[in-house]
């Protein structure tokens, strides 16, 4: 009996590596500490009522941000482990099989469990406020999206200590990801973790499209929407067209693995190349899904801190939409070397280059927003300005890569690695940081410490160049991606060491940010104006943090910069717009079903990973039961009485 348990445990848990044991211990201790703290401070009810069951978009946004910052930590540690392994030739810090797991989880986590949720967090925190709405269109669905993401991410991360991590690369090309080459459970964790959170992403896409199209404040025509709202719309349209492809592709891979089908196997008529095409049909739009909202953030930030209208609004809208459509026609540039023939390669080369045109136009428009403005440089604007040169150079190397015959020399090399990190860090990460710093006071009611923030910015920015510029050269020196070690004879040593140093500089930047948040929570002054940056759009017209119903009375937005114009009018001595009478506000009720349903999904996923039907089937039954329970629940809403609104408003605005 005892032996059986021991056998099971040694297969079930990941064993044999001191790093993993260390992680086990720290995860265990953290869990115990959290449970103990919640019990000691009697916070369980608070946690359940205020957070786990909330349908409030602002709280869901905060949970997204916290989860994604934790994932940024995990993905960042993965990155530094890799950079340490590559710092010197013939390093024996990570064995190849470990290295393979780490670059796989680094990629998956950074894109799917860091960038995506951070983006969804910003959608949630900002969009309803920016368009003058009281919540998203489907608050229950919104909560479900979050918990599906959360449990999907947890399922993926569990593989670190239980069963073993996937190691077939972040896109899991078959046959490496097939049963024949990955017989372990790591790849199943990959499939189920991404599938579960993918359902959530798709629903978020739908939710925000409907929210933006149906719930804008009176007067806000489509062509008067703030640019961030436009970028979210374009990103969400891309999501609902792209994510079903991912779901189907991974479902086919699952059927291959679970039922022994042959969609992507080497033999029996399977074709791995089909998977590569399919996954990139999602994968390429995916990178635009994450970059478009960053463009939106920069547009807001640059206008606010130039104290000037955004230049070329119509061009900007057109560019966003053009990028999101074109992104669906470029996928084959990820495998020019597959031998599709000259005409196919030329087509995808050109469709890829075309994306550079609207992107370039956006850069010009940002520059001319600053032109003849009054620029100030608080942290959000610093990230914006750091972004432009970084992204422009990253975009340029992207165009170089798109030239198909030249790509034969760049493909799979560190040149490619440097390129996509430059656009993903310089574009996406810098953008989301700018957004976080910019909207932080709206969400929490205080700014983040500027001084520490500047340290963080410079460490990130300098670290970035030190880390990735050498990688371009390494690519030209023939260093291929995913190699876990190299010899002295190659001449790659100096540049790799430099790159590693840069990686750690960015790590220090991240630590500064953590310190900045903690320090600011404790010491920063509360913002009483609700408009600390002298903002332009509606979210700055209400107190910070926003009351749970956001707007006591629905605002009007007759101008692109509605709040800015209103402030101008008041400054010129006009009376503020008359507020309509306060009426009871219709609000959605909290619900525990999204949490429970996603937990059931987790159970089902875990069951499928280990092929334990006794666990998977009850999990799925739980999912269906939750759906039924919600369908027959008619008590989903309530009204906030006028008195309470008046009290809240008075307290928040410190008037009357």
């Amino acid at each position, binding site marked *: 009996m005892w032996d059986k348990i021991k056998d099971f445990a040694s297969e079930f848990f990941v064993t044999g590596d001191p790093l993993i044991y260390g992680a086990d211990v720290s995860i265990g201790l953290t869990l115990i500490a959290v449970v103990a703290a919640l019990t000691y401070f009697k916070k369980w009810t608070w946690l359940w009522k205020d957070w786990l069951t909330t349908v409030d978009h602002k709280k869901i946004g905060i949970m997204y941000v916290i989860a994604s910052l934790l994932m940024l930590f995990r993905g960042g540690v993965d990155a530094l482990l890799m950079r340490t392994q590559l710092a010197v030739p013939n390093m024996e810090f990570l064995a*190849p*099989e470990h290295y*393979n797991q780490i670059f796989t989880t680094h990629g998956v986590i950074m894109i799917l469990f860091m960038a995506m949720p951070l983006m969804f967090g910003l959608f949630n925190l900002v969009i309803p406020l920016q368009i003058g709405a009281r919540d998203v269109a489907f608050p229950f669905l919104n909560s479900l999206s979050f918990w599906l993401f959360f449990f999907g991410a947890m399922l993926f991360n569990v593989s670190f200590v239980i069963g073993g991590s996937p190691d077939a690369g972040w896109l899991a*090309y078959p046959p*490496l990801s097939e049963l024949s080459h990955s017989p372990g459970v790591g790849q199943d964790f990959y499939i189920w973790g991404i599938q579960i959170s993918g359902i959530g992403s798709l629903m978020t896409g739908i939710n925000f499209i409907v929210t933006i199209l149906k719930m804008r404040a009176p007067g806000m025509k489509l062509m008067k929407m703030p640019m961030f709202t436009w970028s979210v719309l374009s990103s969400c349209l891309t999501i609902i067209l792209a994510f079903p492809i991912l779901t189907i592709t991974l479902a086919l891979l699952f059927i291959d693995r679970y039922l022994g089908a042959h969609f992507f196997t*080497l*033999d*029996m*008529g399977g*074709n*791995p190349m089909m998977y590569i095409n399919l996954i990139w049909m999602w994968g390429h739009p995916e990178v635009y899904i994450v970059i478009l909202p960053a463009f939106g953030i920069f547009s807001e930030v640059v206008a606010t801190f*130039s*104290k000037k209208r955004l*230049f070329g*609004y119509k061009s900007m809208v057109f560019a966003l939409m053009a990028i999101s459509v074109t992104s669906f026609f470029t996928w084959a540039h990820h*495998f020019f*070397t*597959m*031998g*599709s*023939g000259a005409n196919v390669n030329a087509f995808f*080369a*050109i469709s890829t280059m075309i994306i*550079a*045109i609207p992107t370039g*136009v956006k850069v010009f428009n940002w*520059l*001319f927003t*600053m032109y*003849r403005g*009054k620029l*100030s440089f608080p942290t959000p604007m610093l990230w914006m*300005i750091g972004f432009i*040169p970084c992204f422009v150079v990253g975009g*340029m190397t992207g165009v*170089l890569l798109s*030239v*198909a*015959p*030249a*790509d*034969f*020399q*760049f*493909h*799979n090399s560190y040149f490619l690695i440097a390129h996509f990190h430059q656009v993903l860090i310089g574009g996406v990460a810098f953008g989301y940081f700018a957004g976080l710093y910019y909207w932080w006071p709206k969400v929490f009611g205080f700014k983040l410490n500027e001084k520490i923030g*500047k340290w963080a910015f*410079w460490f990130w*920015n*300098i670290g970035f160049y*030190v880390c990735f*510029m050498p990688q371009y*050269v390494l690519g030209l*020196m*023939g260093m*291929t991606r*995913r190699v*876990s070690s*190299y010899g002295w004879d190659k001449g790659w040593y100096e540049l790799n060491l*430099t790159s590693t140093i840069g990686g750690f500089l960015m790590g220090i930047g991240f630590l500064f940010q953590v310190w900045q948040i903690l320090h600011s929570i404790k010491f920063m002054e509360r913002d009483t104006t609700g408009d600390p940056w002298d903002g332009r759009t509606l979210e700055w017209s209400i107190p910070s943090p926003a009351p749970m119903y956001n707007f006591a009375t629905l605002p009007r937005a007759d101008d692109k910069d509605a709040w800015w114009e209103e402030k101008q009018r008041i400054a010129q001595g006009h009376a503020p717009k008359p507020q309509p009478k306060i009426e009871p506000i219709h609000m959605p009720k909290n619900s525990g079903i999204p949490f429970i349903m996603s937990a059931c999904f987790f159970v089902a996923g875990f069951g499928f990973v280990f092929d334990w039907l006794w666990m998977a089937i009850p999990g799925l039954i739980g999912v269906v039961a939750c759906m039924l329970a919600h369908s027959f629940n008619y008590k989903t809403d309530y009204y906030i009485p006028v008195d309470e609104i008046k009290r809240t408003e008075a307290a928040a605005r410190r008037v009357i």
Partner: protein
Amino acid sequence: MMKGLRRLTAVLSLFAMTILMAGCSDKVVVLNPKGEIGKHQLDLIIISTVLCLVIIVPVLILTFYIVWKYRHNSKKATKYEPEWEHSTKLETIWWSIPIVIIAILAAVTIKYTHMLEPSKPLEHEAKPIVIQVTSLDWKWLFQYPDQGIATVNYIQFPDNVPVEFQLTSDAPMNSFWIPQLGGQIYTMSGMAMKLHLIAEEPGDYMGMGANFSGRDFGKMEFTAKATSQAEFDAWVQQVKDSSPALTTEGYEQLAIPGVSEVETFSSIPEGLFNKIVNKYGAHNHGSGSAEHTDNSGETTNEGATEHEHGNAEATMNHEGHVGHE
């Protein structure tokens, strides 16, 4: 702020210098091609870089200029136009500049894409030498059908003679890359790809498996040695005289996942390469478009040629299934 900017500039120029200095060293293989294909690709890299720089450099300068000039705490009074948000003239300019640049680049790309199509034979008076490449877990098998020899993780061929690589895989997809001779191409099971390269001077060129294919793919390095015709012939003779034969069983041993040293074989089993290609049910996909496939000059062994390929597909798909039932 400005101190930071200055620091950034210093760091950037330091890197520019490193890159330039590194460019001079022959370790930067992509920038030091030794064959026609690699040279054309370098030309293309240079053309596209210059075209991009035409627009990037002014943008970067403009960025620093605007940020510097319109900073709020500037001593000089600058124009402030908070309502200025549109200019058809300006926007037309910056829609058209990228369009023109991309149009030029697109034209260049189309031309080079056809010119450098990897399955297209090189125009050269010498008859190409055929090397059949198979990527295995985690080593390379090279077969010389004309010479009747085989090697592992090492190739040798005469300089100034076109080399026709026929490539397949008996393992997860990899990518065959000799940077100094030219760009890479995937090796995929169930199909025979073609890649034509040439070395214009003798030398030991670094070759590698560029695409991740499992645990030890990083060990799939090989040397591609270009020598004079005489030296090559001597080497072939030496391999024939002193190396063991590669048998079918020997191949199966070799295909077992694991890393390998350099090996040489004095003979190869009849039709081994085609057997590997057809093992998975051949797809008529291999060499790009059919018009580029040139059968005329080949004395090579059967099968990878297009018409037989087609036949093979019809029968092999069938056999492939039978084989597994």
